[in-house]
């Protein structure tokens, strides 16, 4: 039986989820651990979706995705400090992320592609440093706490609370997981609509050969700017959810390593396919979560003892996976052949 691409991608995703959570169960980890791992998986899938659009579809190298997350998180936090309602913070965060994307894009997108990479990585670092030092606005390294979190009251009482109790999970983290899954799903659906439209076709053409897209009458600058701004939105949403999940907004949450997690996720999942962000996040955060609890036997035991060594194991598994499937988990092998 030959499966369609949709079914095949769905199966890969399902298999990855089952493998990761099956391993959790086999190790005797409780629901609480699984919920926390699930939150990270869902959040980073959302975060990486933006990059899957910008990098995977349009070929734009955005190394500052975490900057858009910081904008989202700080919008929620600062709205609270200013006494504004939470909804305003959310809107402010999304608008500011799109605005900053445009500000970064306007001077760089007419230049050679590497300039965008340099500018975006600088932008994210500058934001983090501003958040650390401008204490009047952001409360500096101590960060912002005590802001309202959506659904906190609703989730900790009544039906949801008893549902969570039956699963053996804390009600609010379970609620955040559900919210993260919902927003990731919605963002995926919205981006998938875009990618499968004539708009998405132009993005792919830009990735393949911008000069050709121009010669065929496409104003490539407009498309690149739009892709950058739209891809920033899931980044900002990630920041907000991250703030709500951990009840704090601190500069250290927005270091550049997070952007590179997203890069790993989209490459591991498969560039050129939005679903790569979903599958990649399951595998990367599944591996990281497992590496923290698995005790390796015999002479390898030292690898399980210290944090950095755990990441060594994750790295080795990633290398093996990329050797086994260079096109990524749900990537298209044919597209590897015709790459630049």
């Amino acid at each position, binding site marked *: 039986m030959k499966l369609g691409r949709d079914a095949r991608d769905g199966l890969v995703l399902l298999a990855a989820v089952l493998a990761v959570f099956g391993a959790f169960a086999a190790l005797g980890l409780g629901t609480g651990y699984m919920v926390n791992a699930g939150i990270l998986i869902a959040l980073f899938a959302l975060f990486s979706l933006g990059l899957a659009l910008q990098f995977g579809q349009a070929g734009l190298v955005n190394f500052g995705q975490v900057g858009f997350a910081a904008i989202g998180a700080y919008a929620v936090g600062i709205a609270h400090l200013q006494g504004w309602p939470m909804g305003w913070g959310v809107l402010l965060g999304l608008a500011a992320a799109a605005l900053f994307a445009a500000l970064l894009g306007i001077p760089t997108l007419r230049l050679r592609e590497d300039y965008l990479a340099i500018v975006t990585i600088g932008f994210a670092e500058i934001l983090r440093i501003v958040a650390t030092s401008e204490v009047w606005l952001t409360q500096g390294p101590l960060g912002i706490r005590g802001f309202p979190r959506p659904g906190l009251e609703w989730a900790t009482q009544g039906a949801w609370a008893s549902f969570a109790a039956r699963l053996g999970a804390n009600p609010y983290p379970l609620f955040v997981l559900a919210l993260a899954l919902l927003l990731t799903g919605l963002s995926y659906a919205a981006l998938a609509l875009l990618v499968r*439209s*004539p708009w998405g076709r132009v993005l792919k053409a830009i990735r393949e050969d911008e000069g050709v897209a*121009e010669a*065929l*009458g*496409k104003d*490539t600058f407009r498309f690149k700017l739009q892709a950058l701004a739209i891809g920033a939105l899931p980044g900002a949403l990630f920041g907000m959810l991250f703030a709500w999940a951990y009840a704090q907004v601190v500069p250290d949450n927005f270091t550049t390593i997070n952007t590179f997690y997203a890069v790993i996720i989209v490459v591991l999942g498969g560039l050129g396919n939005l679903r790569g962000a979903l599958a990649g996040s399951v595998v990367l955060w599944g591996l990281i979560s497992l590496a923290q609890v698995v005790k390796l036997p015999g002479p390898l035991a030292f690898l399980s003892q210290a944090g950095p060594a755990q990441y060594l194991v994750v790295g080795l598994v990633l290398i093996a996976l990329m050797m086994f499937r260079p096109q990524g988990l749900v990537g298209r092998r*044919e597209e590897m052949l015709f*790459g630049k």
Partner: protein
Amino acid sequence: MRGLAKAFGGVRAVDAVDLDVGPGEMVGLIGPNGAGKTTLFDLVAGALPADAGSVRLRGEDVTGKPAHDLAQRGLARTFQIARALARMTVLENVCLAAPGQHGERVLPAMLRTWTGQEREVEARARETLEFLGLQEHADAYAGSLSGGQRKLLELGRAMMLKPRLMLLDEPLAGVNPVLAQRILERIAAIRALQGCAFLVIEHDVESVLRTCDRVAVMAHGKKIADAAPDDIRVDRSVLEAYLGAA
């Protein structure tokens, strides 16, 4: 085009060239390697900014307009080394080129209000592929096409623009003779069908002299001749440009 010029450092790649292409006319552009033919195309198509001179398209001054704007105004071009969008299908390559697509704007794209127009675009693209004999490859990645097929694909993309003027940069270069014959036939058919004008760079001088209404010759960035094919055959300066001064 009038007085068109472009220098790269000290090299005057295109030096004050005047050239006209009338409606529906087929003009050949020949000249030795490095004469500035492709640079002239880049200037006309807006891929490079000109240092001096002007370009008019259907009476309108379009000097300095970006390439995408010129394409929308009816100027199509193909490239010397065919540039297929490799990781897209042949059909996608051709559909992409259709002008005025509603679904290329973000909101309509998400609301899927473009599907009706897309059916028309796809139908036209399939017709175009059939016209070029590429229909069997519609769903293959463009990266899997041969060099000659890529040249045909570029022609197809250019046709989708319904241009008034096509700039063809060496449509026959590196193409096997059988396919080259087909490309020549298809160019003639496009001309008959769409009535668009052509400016063609080609090193196969014999084909150019046989098929074009008029032939311009460039050497060292300058236009050295511009006449009917029969006059070009006997033009001394042309022979000198190709063979070196006697």
